[in-house]
C-alpha cells in the first residue's frame, strides 16, 4: 500500500497519521494485506453469495408505536449529561463553516 493510499484511508476513517506512525503502520498493514491476499486462491464452486443478513429467514419488524419511558422529555437528560460540550439542550461542535 502506498503512503498516499494510507492517507486517503485515514481520512475516510476519521483518523490522522503522524509521520512517525506512518512507516510502522504501513509495514504492518502491508503484511496483513499480503496475508489477506491468500483469499484469492479460494475459488468457490457455488456462486451463491448470501450475506449474513440472510441467515435468518423469518421477518423481524417492530410495531410502529412509542414505548413509554424509552424517550421523550423524561428520559433524555441523562443522555445529554454525557455530552462533552453542551448548550441548553443542544450538543455543541465547533462551527462547520
Amino acid at each position, binding site marked *: 500500500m502506498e503512503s498516499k493510499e494510507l492517507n*486517503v484511508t485515514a*481520512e*475516510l476513517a*476519521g483518523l490522522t497519521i503522524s509521520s512517525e506512525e506512518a512507516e510502522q503502520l504501513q509495514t504492518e498493514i502491508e503484511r496483513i494485506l499480503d496475508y489477506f491476499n491468500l483469499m484469492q486462491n479460494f475459488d468457490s464452486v457455488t456462486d451463491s453469495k448470501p*450475506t*449474513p*443478513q*440472510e*441467515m*435468518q*429467514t*423469518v*421477518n*423481524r*419488524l*417492530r*410495531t*410502529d*408505536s*412509542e*414505548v413509554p419511558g*424509552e*424517550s*421523550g*422529555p423524561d*428520559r*433524555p437528560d441523562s*443522555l*445529554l449529561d454525557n455530552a462533552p460540550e453542551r*448548550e*441548553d*439542550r*443542544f*450538543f*455543541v*461542535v*465547533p*462551527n*462547520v*463553516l
Partner: protein
Amino acid sequence: MSMKEGKQTGAGRPGYEIYIGLEIHIQLLTRTKAFCSCRAGYGDEPNTNVCPVCLGYPGVLPALNEEAVKQAYLVAAALNCQSAALTSFDRKNYFYPDMPKNYQISQFYRPIGTGGYIDYPVDSGIRKVRIHDVHLEEDAGKMIHAGDVSLIDYNRAGTPLLEIVTEPDIKSGEQAEAFLRYFRSFVRYLSVCNGNMEEGSLRCDANISLNRPGAGLGRKVELKNMNSSRFVRLALEHEVERQSGLLDAGETVAQETRLWNENRDATILMRKKEAAHDYRYFPEPDLPAFYPDEKFLGQVKQQLVELPLERRLRLQQEYGLSIEAAAYLTIERETADFFEAVLKVLQGGAEGFAATVYNWLNGDVMKELNNRNLSLGNSPLSPKRLADLLLLLEEGRIHGKIAKKVLSLIFERDRDPEFLIADEGFEQISDDNSLRKLIEKVCSDNPEALKQARAGEKKVLGYLIGQVMKSSGGRAEPQRTRNLLAEIIDADEEKEEKAR
C-alpha cells in the same frame, strides 16, 4: 424571473439536449422513527425525542419499523416499480456531526423498489419519468450554525426517509417544477408524506447534464439546497444557461456539486468531485433481510388509491369537467373525495351539478376555509350539508345571496342548512299574498317613486324592488317580486286611466 422568461430560457438553447434527474427524499408519516421507538415528531424541544439508539450510543442496535417498510412498498407499487421479494439495508459511511453513528442506514444493493415510472401532467399534456429506484433510509439531525459553534438537535435523527431516484428523463426546469408539484400531490394521496418542501418534509436534489443531440449524457452537475419547486426550476434554468455558455465557449463542464443561492439567483460551487468521496457501502449486519409475504403485500395493495392524475382524467370524463376544474379538484385527495361525496348525495342530478359544486368549492367554500384556517377534513361543512344547501337553492327555497349567508352560518354554528334557514327565517317569500303585502307597503311609503315609475322611469322600478328586498330581509323571491310590482304599477295606471 417570471414563468414566461423561464420558458424563453429553456427554449433559448436549441443546440443542446438536456438531461435532468431528481433525487427526492420524503419524510414518511410514521409515529416512530425508522429504527427506534422515539417519536417521529417535529417542532418539539431539541433533543427530547432521542434515545440511546438514535443517539448512536455504544452497544445499541436498530429495530426496523414495520410501518416505514409498508409505506415504502406502497410508494414503490404506486410508482409502478418492481417490488423487492427480498430487501435489505446497507451502511453508507461518512463522517458528519449531524449523523450519530457516522454511517447512515440506507439501501444500496437491494432497494425496496426498482425500475418504475410515473406519469405527470405538464402544460395540459402528460409526460413520463422513469424511476431508477426507491429506497428506505434514516434522516440525520439538524444543525444550527451560531457564530463559533454549531448546535446539534438529534430529534430528527433516525426518522424514516424514502428516497426516490428518477432517470434523467426531465428536459427543462419547467418540467421539473411541474413534476414536483404533481409528486407532492402524489405522496399526499398515498398518505405517506405531507409534502412540505419549505419545511423539508419533501426535499429535492437535481442532477443535470447538457450535450449535443445524440451524444448521450454529458458531465453531471448535482444541485442542492432548493427548498421549493420554484427554486428547483430556477436553479435548473440557471444551470442550463451556465453550462450551455461554457459549452458554447468550447469549455468543459466540471463534475461538481453546486448549491442554489436564492439571494443571488444563481448556483454556486459547493465541492468538486473528490476521489476521497467513497461511501464504502456494505450490508448492515444488524438487520436481517426482509421478505414481504402475501399478507404484507395484501395490506400494501389495500392502501393503493386512485392517483391524482388518474382521478383527474376520470373526473373530466365522468362529469364533463374542464381540465382546470378537474385539476383543481384533484390536487388534494380530500377535495376530490369531498367533491364526489357531494355529487353522491345529489345522486340523479349529479352531472348537472358537477360544475356548480366545483364553483362552490373553488369559490365561497375555499374562502370560508381560508378565513377560518380550516381544511375540508376538519371543517363543519360536510358533503351532505353542501349538497343540501345546493338543493335548497335549486328548489328555489332560498336564493343565491342567502345561500352564501347560510354557508357562513354552517361554519359559524356547525348546524344543518335546513335548521339554519328555519332558525333565521331565511326561507324565500314566494307566495303572492305575502309579496303583495310587502309591495303595497313599499308603494305607500314611497309615493314619489311610485309616481315616477308610473311615468315609465325604468330605474325607479329597480329602486322599488330593492326596497321590497330590503324590507323582506332579502327573502322576497326576486323574479316574482319584479312581476308582481310591475302588475301593481300597471294595475294602478289602468285604475287611474279609468278614473280619468
